[in-house]
């Protein structure tokens, strides 16, 4: 099996074409897993090792975050955390509890006057250095997908979820204004990203659903969130880039709208509430699907169980293209390494086109 990265392989899958094999796709693989694969530690700032991992492991692209926030956990290193820390220390000097500037523990925009107090300019100062630096490290055929454009999650995190939800009903124009401020920053970042030839797509990592369905009504999502994503999609396509999205939860009632707004790829088809075979049957000819190997399986199953699951997914979703294999969310540090390997190896072993799994 030729493991040379070839972004055209991934692009073909996005365009519903079969190539040599089913591509692999993830938004994030923990550095500890990358380190085990390479046989040496992989640090956050060791971009060369990260490129080496994604390339040698058989991926056609490396995902790199360029946004106001990293996906998932907000860390001390996150840009937004540093910005908020400065603001909190300016207003309340001597504060030592890190919760005070942690977006996951505290919110900052509760009422309209807070809009002008928030350091939007500082938050808009997005660090593109990693995206620039990776250019010269990429092997031939490999591209970057920029993880950027998060709008929904960042808006509710800035407002606090309960406050956001209440205001969405009681003071909708205020919420719309926060959405607009966040989206404006994310859009500005997109324009810089489009100036980089080695970046082939934009992956919006933005959870919009619970396991039981959308976090807010589909109508509100369409009005306040999808309207922005439509513009992201338009800008991506005008610049010959693909538009990908990650969201946990059951997206079933939103799938038609997601497709209509120009989304090329959806990931990870949350295995706790969505069935890949059904999703493929209903929407698989209109959007490329990535993922669906349950993280619970990656944590607790045996490698042979993982292989069996991968074979089912390849059988159900890979024929005709429009599919890349990956986890049901991302590959965290608590996934068993042997299970990550089993997932990857099973795709490489059984994922050659034409798919021969009965």
């Amino acid at each position, binding site marked *: 099996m030729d493991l040379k990265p070839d972004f055209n392989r991934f692009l073909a899958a996005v365009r519903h074409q079969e190539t040599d094999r089913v591509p692999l796709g993830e938004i994030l693989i923990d550095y500890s897993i990358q380190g085990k694969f390479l046989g040496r530690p992989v640090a956050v700032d060791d971009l060369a090792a990260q490129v080496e991992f994604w390339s040698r492991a058989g991926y056609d692209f490396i995902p790199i975050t360029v946004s106001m926030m990293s996906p998932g956990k907000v860390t001390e290193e996150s840009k937004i955390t540093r910005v908020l820390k400065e603001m909190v220390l300016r207003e309340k000097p001597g504060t030592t509890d890190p919760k005070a500037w942690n977006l996951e523990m505290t919110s900052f925009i509760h009422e309209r006057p807070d809009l002008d107090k928030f350091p939007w300019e500082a938050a808009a100062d997005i660090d593109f250095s990693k995206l620039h630096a990776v250019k010269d490290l990429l092997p031939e055929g490999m591209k970057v997908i920029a993880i950027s454009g998060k709008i929904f999650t960042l808006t509710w995190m800035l407002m606090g979820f*309960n406050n956001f*939800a209440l205001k969405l009903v009681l003071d909708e124009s205020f919420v719309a204004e926060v959405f607009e401020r966040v989206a404006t920053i994310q859009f500005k970042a997109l324009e810089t990203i489009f100036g980089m030839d080695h970046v082939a797509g934009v992956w919006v990592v933005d959870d919009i659903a619970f396991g*039981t369905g*959308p976090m807010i009504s589909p109508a509100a999502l369409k009005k306040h969130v999808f309207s922005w994503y439509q513009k992201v999609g338009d800008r991506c396509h005008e610049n010959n880039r693909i538009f990908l999205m990650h969201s946990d939860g059951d997206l079933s009632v939103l799938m038609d709208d997601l497709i209509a707004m120009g989304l090329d790829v959806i990931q990870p088809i949350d295995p706790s509430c969505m069935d890949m075979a059904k999703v493929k049957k209903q929407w698989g000819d209109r959007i490329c699907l990535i993922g669906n190997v349950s993280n*619970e399986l990656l944590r607790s199953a045996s490698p042979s169980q993982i292989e069996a699951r991968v074979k089912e997914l390849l059988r159900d979703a890979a024929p005709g293209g429009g599919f890349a294999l990956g986890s049901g969310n991302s590959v965290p540090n*608590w996934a068993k390494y042997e299970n990550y390997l089993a997932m990857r190896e099973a795709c490489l072993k059984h994922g050659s086109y034409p798919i021969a799994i009965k």
Partner: protein
Amino acid sequence: MVDHLNTIRDAVIGGKHAEIKGLVQQALDLGLDPGTIINDALIAAMDVVGKDFGSGKIFVPEMLVAAMTMKTGLEVVKPRLAGGENRSRGTVIMATVKGDLHDIGKNLVSMMLEGAGFQVIDLGVDLSADKLVDQVRALKPDILGLSALLTTTMPEMQKVIGELKAQGLRDRIKVLVGGAPVDQVFAAKIGADGYGANAAEAVELARRFAGANASKES
């Protein structure tokens, strides 16, 4: 009288927060029984809201506004209740387990339980088994609601139940679990009394537990 109760009920269901105080005050001024306003209008409204949420007719924001509207209405009625009428359906301690900082689901369940007439003591997030058991001993709730979003923190729920057993408190309390990675099979495996897939189911279970307690007491 029925018209006024229906108007209050519809105001809660429709999340008419700005209007609820006036409507409830009007009903009281007309001589409607405070207990009837609570049970037949405010709590009855939250029953509808819970069902609408469970069936996907409304979503979290609408549910939260309804719960807030209900609570505001309740605050107007409460001072007019006779002592014996002001009893809650039971006390519930809510917490997200150790290692887990997620609280959206827990907060939703807390608000819906309050809306259904329970007294809720929300202990917050990242609660160790020891701390939770101490609080159970001190506060003597009827129900303990545990939440976890991460598969890595789910085992903490089992630790809490184990610690309740070790401290001889398990039989005095019902344990209700929920959260994205939790399911009925897991709940049964760790010996929880119930699992709620969403806030509406959690409230329904709490009611059932409260009903069972009431039967035991009578």
